[in-house]
């Protein structure tokens, strides 16, 4: 993979990958950086680069969490409580970034990772199923359950189309 291709991948997907890695560990930037270096080390680039990156980031983040288990629990809580998951939205009618982050933190990790991968990573349910394991229908059911939970927690009412 050439440097131009790698730079484009970093610019387009690094933020979403860091958000995805944040579900498990408190050092998501290191995990994402290692994932990109691993991609540069490949002799032949993978066919589907984005799902491959999400899988590598997920495995790296889980390994990082296991390596510092006790301390990571404290750090995970501290990181999860950090309100800087999203850039504050300029749209006054949009969702509050801080509130959305806090609502996401309350979700179970197996539902949260699917929502993050689908809404901000752009992965399909088939790609998510390949990354986390299981079937695409299971991934969709969890995603739908997560939306319901967020709807309850955010108290957001469905926006009506005009």
């Amino acid at each position, binding site marked *: 993979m050439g440097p131009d291709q790698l730079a484009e991948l970093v610019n387009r997907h690094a933020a979403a990958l860091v*958000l995805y890695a944040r579900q498990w560990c408190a050092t998501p930037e290191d995990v994402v950086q290692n994932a990109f270096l691993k991609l540069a080390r490949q002799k032949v680039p993978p066919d589907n680069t984005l799902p491959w990156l999400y899988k590598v980031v997920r495995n790296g983040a889980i390994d990082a969490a296991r390596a510092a288990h006790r301390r990571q629990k404290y750090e995970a809580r501290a990181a999860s409580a950090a309100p800087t998951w999203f850039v504050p939205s300029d749209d006054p009618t949009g*969702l509050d970034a801080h509130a959305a982050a806090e609502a996401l933190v309350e979700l179970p990790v197996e539902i949260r990772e699917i929502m993050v991968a689908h809404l901000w990573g*752009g992965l399909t349910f088939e790609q998510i199923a390949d990354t986390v394991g299981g079937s695409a229908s299971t991934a969709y059911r969890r995603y739908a359950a997560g*939306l319901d939970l967020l709807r309850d927690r955010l108290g957001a009412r469905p926006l009506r189309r005009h």
Partner: protein
Amino acid sequence: MTNDQNPDNPLCGADPLARALAKLRPAPTGMDTNRLLFEAGQVARDRDVTFWRRVSLAQFALMATVGCVAAVLLVKLASTPPQIQVVHFTVQPPPEEIPPPRTAPEPPVYAPGNGFVGKAPDPDTLAEYLRVRHEVLTAGLGLLPDYKPRPADPVNPDELERSLNLPPGVLAIPQWQTRKPRPEPEPDSP
């Protein structure tokens, strides 16, 4: 906002909450992109260097193996004493020359009116013939040489008569009888 995070992306579905969530942009990372690309280049270079280093090592190992085998073969050849072949020459007596069988010269065939026909005689035979002819014409037939045919296998007429149950004396073959001496020619009277 990238296309993947566009709330109008079909991946967001028709759920308004999903579209509203997708509008939120993830916080920028604290990663140094330039440093990341630099390290990625180093990693790719190290991968290539490692590959060619392994190729060089394999080549060196192969050449060393070939060199060792060649050295062993050379030492083996050098230590083997040369084989000297001793050739004995013996002088053998020349083979006995078997003389060709003597055959009577074929006299030239005389055809009246046509002269001598047939195979042309060799010069020696022709010279001998002309000499005898001259002598006979000069001194008479008494000078003709005795033409002795090849002696046949000796035949005993008595045994032959007995084997054929013939009375004795039937096979009175003149040539088997003792020849009377030829009378000497009378000298020419003056």
